[in-house]
């Protein structure tokens, strides 16, 4: 329940805004490599309130350049390459390609190093990148991802699928080394105890679901400052996901799916997701205009939302349902929102640091960022008394069995 002015401070990201100034100090996902095709050599990019285009400079290097845009251009406008006019004396931003995503740096001074996280270390064969549009502010999109309790409600499945059919799907695998489906764990233990620790990169968030027979389900997720999360998807894969502002009222999620043991089946992953999105703007086919394909019969028998089995749609409905920019004058957070409280503290500290020209105080803007590895992100089931060690060991085993160097 904060005032509109304080809400504006942490949500609005255009040039000259406090939160926008923080986000501009970090590499931002700008476009998928998939978007750059022979018939589309210049890709429109709508990022942080600016109308840009991914193109090449005179040396052949990828850059973002300002493009000509009318004031009434739609937020998700995606013109063909031959309809893009570059503003020759406009700003130019450096771009690097990493694991299927073009990242851009739109801030002052030198860009920071990339951390050596799993999604950037894994070989190209073990990563797959995709993106999707959500028509809401970036902060509410991020905050659902750092609320470990929501999965037990929003993503509640009333029946459990065969985990053998779980490839590429979130929460559909077996839980850790057991035969219990993750959907059952989430459904039967809906009130996790939360532990939140500040780290060099953001937050480590541990959700403990205390089960029968002195067992505890341990789920470790992470907030990577300023607007990413790193969470387990299955025993095989993790998700690193950025919530990237297009403008104040729209954002894209960009995800790098990272596989530890086996190469990613990219064709299947792409096919699964293209069934839910249209090209070229990656807008979801289920959306506000068609009530997210809500089916009351499905809600009665199969899912909490009645909006299908893709949990991404559940999250999309939940965050878009809060309005274009969540009205936090009507918000009531509790101690169960510990990670959101800690994140907003980090964001406000960062805003203050930028205002005071103390950029070294920002996470991952000083020291040896390239030495940052991990982060640990997994599900484990352990005896309640040694859950911490068991969670660590489960992650170490997955890394040891991995064909690429995932050591931490």
């Amino acid at each position, binding site marked *: *329940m*904060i*005032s509109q002015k*304080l809400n504006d401070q942490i949500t609005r990201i255009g040039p000259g805004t406090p939160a926008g100034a923080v986000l501009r100090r970090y590499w931002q996902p700008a476009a998928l490599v998939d978007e750059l095709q022979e018939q589309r050599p210049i890709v429109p990019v709508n990022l942080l309130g600016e109308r840009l285009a991914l193109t090449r400079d005179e040396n052949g290097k990828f850059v973002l350049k300002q493009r000509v845009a009318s004031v009434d251009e739609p937020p998700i406008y995606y013109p063909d390459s031959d309809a893009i006019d570059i503003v020759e004396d406009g700003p130019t931003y450096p771009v690097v390609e990493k694991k299927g995503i073009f990242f851009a740096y739109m801030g002052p001074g030198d860009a920071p190093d990339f951390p050596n996280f799993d999604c950037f270390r894994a070989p190209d064969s073990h990563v797959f990148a995709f993106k999707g549009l959500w028509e809401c502010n970036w902060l509410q999109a991020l905050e659902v991802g750092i609320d470990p309790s929501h999965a037990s409600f929003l993503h509640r499945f009333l029946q459990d699928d065969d985990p053998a059919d779980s490839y590429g799907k979130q929460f559909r695998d077996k839980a850790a080394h057991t035969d219990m489906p993750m959907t059952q764990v989430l459904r039967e233990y809906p009130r996790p105890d939360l532990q939140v620790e500040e780290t060099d990169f953001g937050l480590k968030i541990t959700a403990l679901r205390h089960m029968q027979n002195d067992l505890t389900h341990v789920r470790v997720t992470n907030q990577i400052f300023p607007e990413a999360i790193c969470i387990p998807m299955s025993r095989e894969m993790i998700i690193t996901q950025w919530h990237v502002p297009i403008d104040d009222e729209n954002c894209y999620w960009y995800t790098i799916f990272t596989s530890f043991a086996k190469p990613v089946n990219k064709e299947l992953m792409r096919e699964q997701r293209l069934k839910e999105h249209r090209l070229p703007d990656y807008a979801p086919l289920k959306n506000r205009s068609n009530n997210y394909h809500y089916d009351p019969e499905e809600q009665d028998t199969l899912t909490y939302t009645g909006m299908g089995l893709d949990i991404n749609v559940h999250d999309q409905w939940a965050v878009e349902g809060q309005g274009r920019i969540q009205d936090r*004058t*009507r918000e009531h957070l*509790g101690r169960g929102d510990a990670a959101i409280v800690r994140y907003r503290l980090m964001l406000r500290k960062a805003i203050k640091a930028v205002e005071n020209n103390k950029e070294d105080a920002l996470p991952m803007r000083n020291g040896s960022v390239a030495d940052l590895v991990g982060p640990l992100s997994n599900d484990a089931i352990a005896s309640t008394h040694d859950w911490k060690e068991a969670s660590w060991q489960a992650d170490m085993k997955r890394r040891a069995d991995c064909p690429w160097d995932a050591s931490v």
Partner: protein
Amino acid sequence: MAQGANMKCAVRAVAGRAFEDILDGYFPLSESVRQMMVRHGFTSMWITVLHAPVMTLKGLAPTDPVPFSLPKTYAGMIEHMALGAASSDNRVHLVGVGNWFWVDGRDEVDTFPPSTRLGEPAFVRGIGIGEADAEAGTRMSVALARLDPSEPIDRELEAATRRLGWQASRAWRFETGVPAIRRSDDRDVPSSLFGRAVGTDKLSREVASLPASASLSDWDHVLVDVSPDHPDRDALEFAQRL
């Protein structure tokens, strides 16, 4: 009180611990602090609050429930605040120093009313002092000190740390001069908010433990043990995060 031969400060070990937690939002600050002390079983507490939204709801008494949506309000932000809290008879008394601002044109005053409501839950770190006496022979991790203002502070704190038998400590000054939460000046920030790191290589351990009813008002510094040989690794980790 034990007095060293070459120092004038008073120092007492107390049954306490470093901790971190979240103050509930929307209630008056003093009520959220009181509930936190009850949760942890503390009788006294020192905490720091950073970047916490606050609000004063027009026409809403401190005992009134939290409204569903934000009516006419004065909104602001605690930028930083170090608070000392002591409870008695189910009430809590707050003193401290800090900096805050209001974004809606409210008149600025030099004291912060403890009835001001938090605009959302606030993460805090601090040191709590409990009701129970420590068991005999137990190594104490928290101490209270009253320094001699005529002596250099660093020397006094080093002597206090040595007498506690600790290799290293961190120390924070808390407000005793005014019965309120006052606006800080530049001198307050290092000593009250960030604290001082104190190290020593000569240990003497000649400090008595304080009984349960420790009152902050007799003291001006709180110290926490950050010795590398601290036997409780979790306690040390919390202390190092302060």
